[in-house]
């Protein structure tokens, strides 16, 4: 517990400590949190839930996305205080993400791969779906007409 005779001096210490902690946080590299044993995220529907370790209160994070790990033409996906972002609607392909506390070092790139369901399986399922729905509707309407008449 810090004790001073002057509240003014105490406030100065407190402000300096806050600034120091903020600057330290900004200098540290933020790292993504990924499930143990997984170096790459995978998705079958274009959805990725990214999260990263907190670097302290009040820190602003920046998240970038790129199609190559050298981030030659990155897109800013998020800038703000959250420690995660739920990305949806990604097309098939490889993606790389990096995150940092604003003004700090970028994290190691995190690779993600979006691969949709096999097209042959997809078509079989879609045709099945169409047949079942059409047969269901058709049978109900036919049955209704017959029983009504």
């Amino acid at each position, binding site marked *: 517990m810090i004790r001073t005779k002057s509240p003014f001096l105490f406030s100065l210490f407190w402000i300096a400590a806050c600034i120091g902690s903020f600057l330290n946080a900004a200098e540290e590299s933020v790292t993504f949190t990924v499930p143990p044993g997984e170096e790459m995220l995978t998705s079958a529907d274009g959805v990725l839930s990214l999260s990263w370790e907190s670097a302290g209160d009040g820190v602003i994070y920046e998240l970038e996305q790129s199609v190559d790990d050298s981030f030659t033409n990155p897109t800013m996906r998020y800038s703000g205080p959250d420690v995660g972002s739920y990305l949806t609607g990604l*097309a098939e392909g490889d993606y790389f993400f990096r995150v940092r506390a604003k003004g700090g070092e970028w994290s190691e790139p995190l690779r993600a791969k979006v691969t949709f*369901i096999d097209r042959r399986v997809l078509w079989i399922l879609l045709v099945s779906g169409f047949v079942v729905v059409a047969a269901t509707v058709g049978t109900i309407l036919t049955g209704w007409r017959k029983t009504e008449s």
Partner: protein
Amino acid sequence: MEENGVMTIFASISSTTAWATVIGLGALWVLLGYYWGKKAKDGEGFMLAGRNVGLALGSATAMATWVTSNTMMVAPVLALEKGVWGMLAYSSAAFGLMLFAPLAIRIKKLLPEGFTAGDFFLKKYGRPGWAIFMLITLLYSITWLVTMAIAGGKLLEALGGIPYMQGMTLIMVVCVAYTLFGGLFAVIGTDFIQSLIILIGVVFIGVMIVLKLDFGETYEYVSVNQPSLVSVMMPAALLAFFNNMLFGFGEVFHNNVWWSRAFAMRDDVAPKAFFVSGLLWFPIPIAAGFLALAAGPLGINVTDASKVGPMVAEHVLNESGMGSFASILILVVLFCSIASSIDSLLAATSDLLVKDLYLGLGKKKLTDHGFRKVAAVAIIGVAVLAWTMAKFEWNVGLVLYSAGGLVAALIWPVIAGLFWKTYNRNIVLAGIVLGCITGYVTFFKIEPYIGALCGATVSMVFTVISRFVGATPQENYTGQTT
């Protein structure tokens, strides 16, 4: 809080305001429930509202029951993850209500004195078929009820800062109270008012979003950053479309919530009411889903997909200068959507327990007064079970969504039982069991959005085969060959 155009928000009202809003609405429902409950003179009145429900009340109760917390909270998630097809996928559940219209006509003819869906399964598929049905429907109904209790608790916690247990308990107590007082009379009456509030609220929020958004910019943003959401050929979304539609068919066709309404409505009213309620319900998930598509263009960072709908709605209303009124409006709309489904599930599930288990299986006889007592115990029992499961916040959502195969496996047995003269009962029942197993296996082992599709497909194949292999004439409820 805004930085580089991307922000995170989820402002809330004070817990006092949230308590006052929920208690105020709750008191109104209980008073109305008590008033309408006086009409229930006997057991049949309590269970089926005197079998005399008209078109306005009938349409409203079906629509309000189908607008659950899932419609307001999960439809946006489906749109956020699966885009335009995702919105349509959720809306396709409206076809379940519309298709129930011709089924309702047949149900009323075959079972003019019927009480529950269990009556139908017992007569058409014997004790084994009835047992399979009861197992599936009780599992499904209880988990559906628990998901809504959990959603209610979380909603009050997120919007009003009310601790989860207190909020969840409050919602359950309110719904139990007015269902106890008035039975189906109270449920249908309150559903009518709740459906009006839901419709007005959704239209209001939808208009505010349309005014706020530039559709050209929204499309451009989504095409660049979330291209699959506007892709015609997004595999997961296309599969979700058929899967959700069949999930909806299965839910409506088998569940006693809908059968009890069919029995409660007048003969000429039931088909019209189900068709109109489907039409009214259809745009609601699209409006709710559009909220999610607007999240990116509005610069809202989504961290928890399950909250995207209320988050965007609150943001838009706040931006329109509505302040805390925005949160109150969202709370009222969501509370109505949750209450209108909890009360229906409490009433319909307790009917099954009393009529099918206590009176049917237990072979008990009851006076009208005794019936009310047993029904009250059943309603409280179901509520306490749901409250206990909701208390531990078990992951019943997973159970509910994985049950798509279970309910979808009942679609064709219901159709066959209602419309076909001959079929082989054993093959139909084998199809239900194999459909359920296939639904679960495909949900957990292949993709979560194909469980209902695969379950329905297997059951359909078996049911069709049952018409040609060892088919025997079936008897309808009144003992005549149909």
